[in-house]
């Protein structure tokens, strides 16, 4: 009964999610915020995989042979996303700069772009891809921006976008990633229902949801407690602890052994939780980044152990209850 109930409730909720998202997209279209108002989503893949390169004063320009995803060229445009690390090389501090870029293929025309950037922020460059030949290498030349900032590009910090995808298609794939979470929540509700009454069962399901959604906050808190405890122990060992009885600015927060133990237990427990990002692909959609089938498969695989445990526990609890005939 438990397995069937999880399947039934999970499937119905999944169908409602897909149907609801489809009609919500229709509503957006009717309201004037349709597909035309947003950039098409694309699958982005690392374009610089060879290792870290940089444009600094010592090496003011560099050439990279880009790995372009299949289907991106020839096309309407080749979209490149950059997430470099800015390095202050001295001089007047500027909040923004401009980065000269050149893209070409052997024997082809050179395309120039001057892209504005702010240190610490990613940026996008677009090139015309209609005349590019997929059989030839695509060479990107990056010049150092004038002014203070040099840029370091770690491997994978330049991404090339694949062919554009319909937003509705990406939304449906995001819904597919969300479905394992619906089965998990349904199983948590059933676990509570197998032993308790409806309000407790609801509370249990909501608690799991809150735990999944807030796990980053809990992890940050637990890590802070562990760090503070380690620092305090280190200071005590080195004999640098304050000896005048007053708190100093650099004195770490006081952590009791119980707090430290709870933080350790929380960190171990949180390791067993699947990350919420695996199910909730909202940030990808807002970043106009396509959701890939392996990401959906990963979400399903991450949910599987938890789902098995919840179903098994619910079955055990239900089998211990007395069922009375009507």
């Amino acid at each position, binding site marked *: 009964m438990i397995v069937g109930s999880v399947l039934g409730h999970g499937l119905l909720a999944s169908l409602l999610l897909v149907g609801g998202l489809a009609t919500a997209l229709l509503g957006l279209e009717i309201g004037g915020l349709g597909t035309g108002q947003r950039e098409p989503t694309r699958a982005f893949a690392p374009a610089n995989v060879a290792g870290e390169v940089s444009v600094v004063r010592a090496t003011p320009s560099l050439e990279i042979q880009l790995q372009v995803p299949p289907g991106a060229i020839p096309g309407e445009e080749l979209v490149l996303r950059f997430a470099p690390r800015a390095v202050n090389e001295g001089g007047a501090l500027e909040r923004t700069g401009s980065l000269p870029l050149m893209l070409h293929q052997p024997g082809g025309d050179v395309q120039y772009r001057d892209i504005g950037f702010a240190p610490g922020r990613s940026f996008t460059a677009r090139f015309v891809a209609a005349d590019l030949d997929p059989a030839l290498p695509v060479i990107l030349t990056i010049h150092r921006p004038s002014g203070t900032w040099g840029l370091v590009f770690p491997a994978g910090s330049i991404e090339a976008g694949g062919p554009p995808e319909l937003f509705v298609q990406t939304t449906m794939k995001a819904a597919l990633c969300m479905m394992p979470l619906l089965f998990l929540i349904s199983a948590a509700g059933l676990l509570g229902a197998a032993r308790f009454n409806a309000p407790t069962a609801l509370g249990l399901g909501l608690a799991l949801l809150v735990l999944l959604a807030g796990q980053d906050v809990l992890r940050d808190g637990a890590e802070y407690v562990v760090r503070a405890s380690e620092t305090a122990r280190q200071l005590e060992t080195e004999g640098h602890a304050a000896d005048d009885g007053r708190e100093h600015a650099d004195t770490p927060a006081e952590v009791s052994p119980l707090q430290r133990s709870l933080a350790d237990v929380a960190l171990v427990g949180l390791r067993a939780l699947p990350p919420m990002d695996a199910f909730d692909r909202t940030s990808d959609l*807002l970043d106009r980044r396509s959701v890939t089938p392996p990401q959906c498969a990963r979400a399903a695989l991450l949910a599987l152990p938890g789902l098995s445990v919840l179903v098994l526990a619910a079955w055990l609890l239900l089998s211990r209850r007395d069922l009375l005939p009507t």
Partner: protein
Amino acid sequence: MTFLRQVAAIAELRARQGVASRLGFIVPFGVVVGLGAALWVPGVDAAARAATADRVMLGAMSGLAVLAALIPAATTIPRELRTGAAYRLLA
């Protein structure tokens, strides 16, 4: 094989119960969410408004789907245990 048939029968029953309890309202309600988001979200340009509207739409529909997964799951079995219907299902 019998186990799978039983699982499928219970799953179908749960889905039918969900439909009977008018959970299907979520689908047409999506139009209202999308339309409302498109008409009322703020933003400096269409792209910014589209991003906000997408966030609203995804958040609202995912939230409703989570409730549609949780509430029937948490309430059905206690009711069936109380009325004795669970005995007939497991028999």
